[in-house]
């Protein structure tokens, strides 16, 4: 569902550009709104959310889709935690659909999906592993890397049980906006994927904005 935001970028309390292949880590407080902006189009922002006070509670793809009865995320979707609490709600979306079934790229899954020789290519799980090791204060490890949201990715499921990676439905300037219902740690890998035609083999930067 396409829903424009009324928030103005010039009023944001925080703005940061995240290049492809980099991670982004920030606590967003309950009541604040975070926007992820696709600057150049057809990028994938692989995103994890954690309870900022207890990261053992984290975003759960399966609880989220089951409780809303739909496999896609868009405006109105409530993102649920592994404890089935609402963490955030998508309050605006100019893209219309986001994926949470496809997971993130990893060196090892690149070997199976593309070629055994692709194992040394940079991948989203690398970005997250760097994030948690560079932030020891979080007390997080690979155990904390779970199923994510792929903002701006389109992964259609068919009624006979097929699943495909379709061309992106995002474009330069499209965005998704989420209001936090609890204090959340936002961890994004701006995808460095060079093997997927969805982004025309050209990963590009995103921008993250927060309104207090």
């Amino acid at each position, binding site marked *: 569902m396409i829903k424009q935001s009324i928030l103005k970028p010039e009023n944001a309390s925080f703005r940061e550009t995240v290049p492809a292949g980099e991670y982004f880590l920030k606590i967003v407080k309950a009541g604040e709104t975070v926007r992820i902006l696709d600057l150049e189009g057809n990028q994938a922002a692989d995103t994890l959310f954690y309870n900022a006070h207890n990261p053992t509670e984290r975003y759960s793809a399966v609880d989220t889709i089951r409780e809303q*009865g739909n496999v896609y995320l868009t405006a109105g979707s409530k993102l649920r935690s592994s404890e089935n609490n609402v963490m955030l709600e998508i309050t605006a979306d100019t893209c219309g659909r986001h994926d949470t079934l496809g*997971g993130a790229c990893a060196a090892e899954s690149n070997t199976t999906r593309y070629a055994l020789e692709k194992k040394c290519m940079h991948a989203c799980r690398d970005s997250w592993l760097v994030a948690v090791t560079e932030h020891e204060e979080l007390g997080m490890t690979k155990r904390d890397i779970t199923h994510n949201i792929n903002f701006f990715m389109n992964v259609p499921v068919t009624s006979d*049980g*097929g699943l495909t990676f379709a061309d992106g439905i995002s474009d330069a300037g499209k965005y998704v906006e989420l209001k936090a219902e609890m204090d959340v740690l936002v961890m994004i890998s701006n995808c460095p994927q060079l093997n997927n035609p969805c982004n025309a083999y050209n990963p590009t930067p995103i921008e993250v904005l927060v309104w207090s």
Partner: protein
Amino acid sequence: MLQSAAPLYDDLIPGGSHWSFVMRRGHVLRLIDETGGTNVGMLMYNPENPLERYNMPDTLKNQHTFLLTSGHVLLSDMGRVFASIIRDDLGWHDTVSGTCNADLVEQRWGQKTYQEAHNHYHRNGFSSFLNELAKYGLGKKDLTANLNWFSKVKTDDDGNMAYVSDHSHAGATVDLRFEMDTIVVLHTCPHPLNTASDYPSHPLRYQLFKAAPVTDADPCKISSPEATRAFANTALYHMMQS
């Protein structure tokens, strides 16, 4: 694809229960819906390094599928094959709906405690998984999207999910051939989308067999280029062990 017709072991797990064990490479775990209508929640870990675990997104996207059936392989997050589905009588098993929790069970079927119902108390999948995971030093951080054997959840063109009731029948069988040593954690608690009026409590019969050797023409191994590469990764993992 079994080396012998007689099971090495045969056991029945009551409905609404949980259990776990280590499957050794080269063996088949047969799951049988004893009465019809069962749901079996399952998680998988590498006993040598439990940070390697079943990965729902990698399993689905590598095989371009939303459902699991014979010919599919169950992938770890390290690009390897825990198990191959070498037989399936139903054609569709769910791995995207997660598991029921205490709130869901209480809201739908009421609370029934051990004090009042003894072993017919209402257990839920979330607590059941944690109970078994603790036996291996694992916990909440290790919970991940689970398999729901014998359950079907389909979608329409807009992505709306629908639970298909009466999907499984008495005697329905799934054979999983393990390609790696694997901690198998399972429960027989209801599927979280089951709308039955009474708490669904259906047992699981499981049997263990020795598997026949896996050939280069094995249907699971050649089912997709992705599966073939996952088998290659698994062979590399085993190279120094034989």
